[in-house]
């Protein structure tokens, strides 16, 4: 599976990374395992956004809604119904995908920033419903102590579950990006008018992309429930959406693994810098400025550029 994604040295690094990820619980204390789990699922969330943002060129600025809705759907199923928890895990992403369909159908009539504005408004509407509907969602208290199947209630169980689901989702998303649908989507990003003129139904392709992105954001949402056993309205707040966008930009929104790297950078900063100063976002802001000025393709975009230089240059000289 890795072979299709990486080549040469990259493949070795990929395998090494995987082995390390699987061995981590043996080495690291519980707190760090929790952080790594959060990085994994946030990376999944950022990558799902990047499907539409980096590959689709759709300005989905309020992506956290799908994450939060997926998490809430799972949490509500777990706390309020007697159904098997495994069903709740599937329901979360499906509800998110359905919301992606509904919001997509409304927003897709507009493009670029107009899309973004409408999407942020609709997303905020969902947030306020979750925030105010005390009797159903618990309002700003959220839902705590969500019961989980025994196998997942240990930190290591939750970690391995998150790791495996994230890996599977990454594989599927990678396949989608490299499929004809992914090619068409990238064409639409670069030039919607031209795409339409070569026979692509632009709006429908974008809508499907939004549904897929919603689905994977929902997966990240239920993973959060598994790791943290809580949900709260901040998961749908637009500041989180902004943070996910920053992850994509920081890591590199034209590279597949860029958002994952961005997620890791931001969460590490938030966790460790915030122990020194509560102004950790200042560090993030300065970092962001450097990235925009010096690495416009993001951190991973820059690394890839350096690695591929040897490959591209002879072609130019030809």
């Amino acid at each position: 599976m890795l072979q299709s994604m990486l080549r040469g040295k990259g493949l070795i690094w990929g395998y090494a990374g995987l082995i390390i990820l699987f061995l981590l619980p043996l080495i690291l204390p519980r707190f760090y395992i929790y952080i790594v789990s959060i990085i994994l699922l946030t990376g999944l969330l950022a990558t799902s956004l990047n499907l539409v943002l980096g590959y689709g060129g759709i300005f989905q600025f309020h992506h956290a809604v799908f994450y939060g809705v997926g998490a809430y759907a799972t949490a509500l199923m777990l706390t309020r119904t007697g159904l098997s928890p495994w069903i709740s895990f599937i329901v979360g992403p499906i509800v998110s995908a359905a919301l992606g369909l509904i919001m997509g159908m409304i927003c897709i009539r507009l493009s670029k920033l107009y899309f973004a504005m409408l999407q942020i408004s609709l997303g905020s509407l969902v947030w306020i419903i979750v925030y105010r509907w005390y009797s159903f969602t618990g309002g700003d208290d959220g839902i705590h102590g969500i019961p989980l199947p025994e196998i997942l209630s240990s930190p290591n169980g939750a970690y391995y579950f998150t790791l495996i689901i994230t890996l599977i989702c990454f594989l599927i998303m990678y396949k989608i990006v490299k499929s004809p649908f992914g090619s068409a989507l990238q064409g639409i990003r670069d030039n919607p008018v031209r795409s339409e003129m070569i026979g692509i139904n632009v709006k429908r392709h974008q809508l499907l992309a939004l549904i897929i992105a919603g689905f994977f954001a929902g997966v990240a949402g239920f993973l959060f429930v598994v790791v943290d056993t809580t949900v709260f309205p901040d998961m749908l707040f637009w500041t989180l959406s902004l943070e996910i966008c920053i992850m994509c930009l920081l890591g590199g929104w034209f590279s597949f693994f860029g958002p994952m790297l961005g997620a890791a950078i931001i969460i590490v900063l938030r966790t460790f810098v915030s122990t020194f100063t509560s102004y950790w976002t200042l560090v993030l802001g300065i970092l962001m400025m450097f990235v925009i000025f010096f690495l416009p393709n993001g951190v991973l975009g820059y690394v890839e550029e350096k690695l591929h230089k040897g490959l591209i240059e002879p072609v130019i000289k030809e």
Partner: protein
Amino acid sequence: MLEVKSISKSFDGFKAVNNANLEVEKGEIVAVIGPNGAGKTTLFNLITGILKPDNGKVFFKGEDITGLHPYQVCRKRISRSFQIVNVFQRLTVFENVQVSVLSRQKKTWNLFTPSTKLVIKETNEILESVGLIKKKNRTTALLSHGDRKVLEIAMALGGNPEFLILDEPTAGMAPEETARCIELIKHLSEKLGLTILFCEHDMEIVFGIANRIMVMVRGATIVQGGCDEVRCNQAVQDAYLGRSDVCLM
């Protein structure tokens, strides 16, 4: 094959296309000429569905295609290239054409087969025929302007068209590129039997390859006819040269 009947389009009261008429028979090469701002590109946008006409009709093979979406027009096997280069900047030359072929074969809903395994042969054939095969792995940002214009045509060919619309195919090209492009257009017409509608400012090219010419001035069709007929038409001469009694060129 294509028939445009008294089509009009105005933008905020400005009549960009005003009662234009056009007829193209199968296998012909028809040129649309006219001074800058005559409405040539707008006419093409109206035919291909990028703009909706205020009134008038477009028929293709007897079928009314007025007001269809561009992707639906494309599926009727009408393809076009653009005057201002309009390619997928971040994709390679190969991928640009490949997307077009995939779209024609309705494979863009396929989520799980890697693109690298699909329509390789067809894409290579198209690149071969337009002479871009050696540059297929470059990203389009690294192509010369002339090559990008040719890529435009290659992408249009990806839709396996019967009817090809070229909007100023040689604009901005160096002389040798222009010559190559003309050869290509002739080749498409003769070998593949495509019907071609194009607009162009270079009269040498127009009179060199067009079977018939349609002249537009201020959005209206002045005349449509054979080269000689157009060359000696008084209204055309007035439009291009002001009042005079010498033949155009």
